[in-house]
């Protein structure tokens, strides 16, 4: 695994601690409470899914973890160090691939290395990351030439090339068609198993959360509190129709206040 062959061996993953985090936005003079006393500890290498109603502040927690914003109260710690600014060790993958349309696929993936002045020495890492998402033949394509699934794979490669120890995924497959979504879920899973980063996945797809995560955290409506925490102790690969998963799905839907007969 070429991406792992760093001169300085770094730990492949970090822990993320969320301590009593509350956050709010000012909206046209009103204060909109988004997060209310979130308490969460993610172990190194763990895959945690955040599940909740839309607009419940799941994405806000990811922005805070990425360091794009500071919480109004509480603190977020990466391996015990407070998170105050964005850092390439924690990369956020958005629902939209948000590729830079003026850059080829190769240069999109190279962005992080270029921004930190590492590109000259580490050009091969761009090629490796593209190979990892099976897009090496599209290196010179522009984003508008890609399908939705390919674009999202480029976005994931753009994150992975930086060797993130914490990958923050904000509904990364939300806009993909259902077949593409299934194959992307498998790809993400195998990347996580191969590379070994800590993953925090925001999703509103209960099945996706149960298929991928070690632990599923269920958020309430805004302002979000954690209403349930479900450990999924099944080894990967998991089957969608596994009776235990079906049972868990029923339980999760119940915590979200939705009948499982849907």
């Amino acid at each position, binding site marked *: 695994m070429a991406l792992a062959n760093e001169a300085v061996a770094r730990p492949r993953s970090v822990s993320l601690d969320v301590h009593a985090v509350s956050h709010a936005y000012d909206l046209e003079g009103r204060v909109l409470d988004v997060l209310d006393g979130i308490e969460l500890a993610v172990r190194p290498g763990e895959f945690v899914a955040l599940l909740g109603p839309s607009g419940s502040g799941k994405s806000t927690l990811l922005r805070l973890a990425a360091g*794009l914003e500071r919480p109004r109260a509480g603190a977020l710690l990466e391996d015990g160090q407070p998170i105050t600014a*964005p850092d390439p060790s924690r990369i*956020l993958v*958005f629902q939209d691939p*948000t590729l830079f*349309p*003026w850059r080829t696929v190769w240069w999109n993936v190279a962005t992080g290395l270029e*921004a930190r002045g590492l590109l000259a020495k580490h050009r091969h890492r761009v090629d490796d990351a593209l190979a990892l998402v099976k897009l090496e033949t599209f290196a010179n394509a*522009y984003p508008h030439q890609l399908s939705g699934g390919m674009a999202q794979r480029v976005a994931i490669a753009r994150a992975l090339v*930086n060797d993130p120890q914490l990958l923050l995924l904000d509904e990364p497959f939300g806009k993909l068609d259902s077949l593409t979504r299934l194959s992307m879920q498998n790809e993400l899973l195998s990347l996580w198993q191969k590379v070994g980063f800590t993953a925090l996945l925001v999703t509103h797809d209960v099945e996706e959360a149960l298929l991928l995560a070690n632990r599923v955290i269920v958020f309430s409506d805004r302002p979000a509190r954690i209403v349930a925490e479900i450990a999924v102790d099944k080894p990967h690969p998991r089957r969608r129709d596994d009776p235990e998963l079906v049972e868990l799905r029923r339980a999760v839907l119940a915590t979200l206040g939705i009948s499982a007969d849907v």
Partner: protein
Amino acid sequence: MTDAIQALGSGGYASAESAARIWKAGLYAALAWAATAVVTVALPDVVPWGSAGLFAAITGAGAAILTVLAFSVSRLGKAGERIIYYGPWFIALGIWFLLWEVSTAKLGWLPKPFFSPPHGLLNVYVVDGPRLLVCILYTLRLWGLGFFSGIAVGFIAGVALGWSARVNYWGMPVLKLIGPVPATAWIPATFYFFPTTFAASIFIVALSAGIPVAILTASGVSSVNRAFYDVARTLGADNRYLVFKIAIPASLPHVFVGLFMALYYSFAVLVVAEMLGAKYGLGWYIQFQQAYSGYANVYATLIIMSVICAGIIKLLFVARDRLLGWQKGIL
């Protein structure tokens, strides 16, 4: 499936057939051009204009070339296709020259000095060619210095206005006030501030080019999708990287709209800018000839100016297509 094969087959036949055929539009065009040549030499001018023989020779040569092309154009491949595409234009030009000749020089319906036949304009280039050439160089020097310094300053100002909230707070209202004022209105002030009239002229051209570039660059930079900045920041980008590698490339489509506007504005003020004590230049030449009712010279110069302007616009399009190739499919 069979339909597709048939369609392909018939398409192949059609092109083979047209290859064997003669290019009719070329023949009609040749006819019109030949008629112009004959009329120009055969009928006397109402008032002498000069260069009638030369014009007849040129249009006659054009007719000869068009005749040859009419039989050979299908063998010229891609260039031939372009020539065929412009066939109707060659016909129109020939008819236009003919009507123009007849109504001005031959019948005098459109009289001297207000109108000129085509060979009258040709005569200007023949008689005053060297002086016009010097004027072209002077104009290009003034335009080049003004345009490029204007768009450089306008671009930098636009990036600052679009990027920095503080620069925007102070700069945007000023720009919005100055923007609609015609650049030529600043002539009195520029005379006071600039040591030479040449520098003042450059400033007027620069101002007319700089303002649209500044406004559109600013709007381009400030309308960049915020998510691009978030992505770049999580990937470790600093402010410098955000400006040069995200904000500027993302706003280039806007910048190019500004550049096209700058080009037109700068050409429009060029004539006025050359009134400021210039000794050469196409604008100066137009002014000078107008004073002596040399309208043929004025028309001849206007043709030169529009050809230069069209050429520069073409260059700008080429530059845009090279730089903004990534936009294909987005537009």
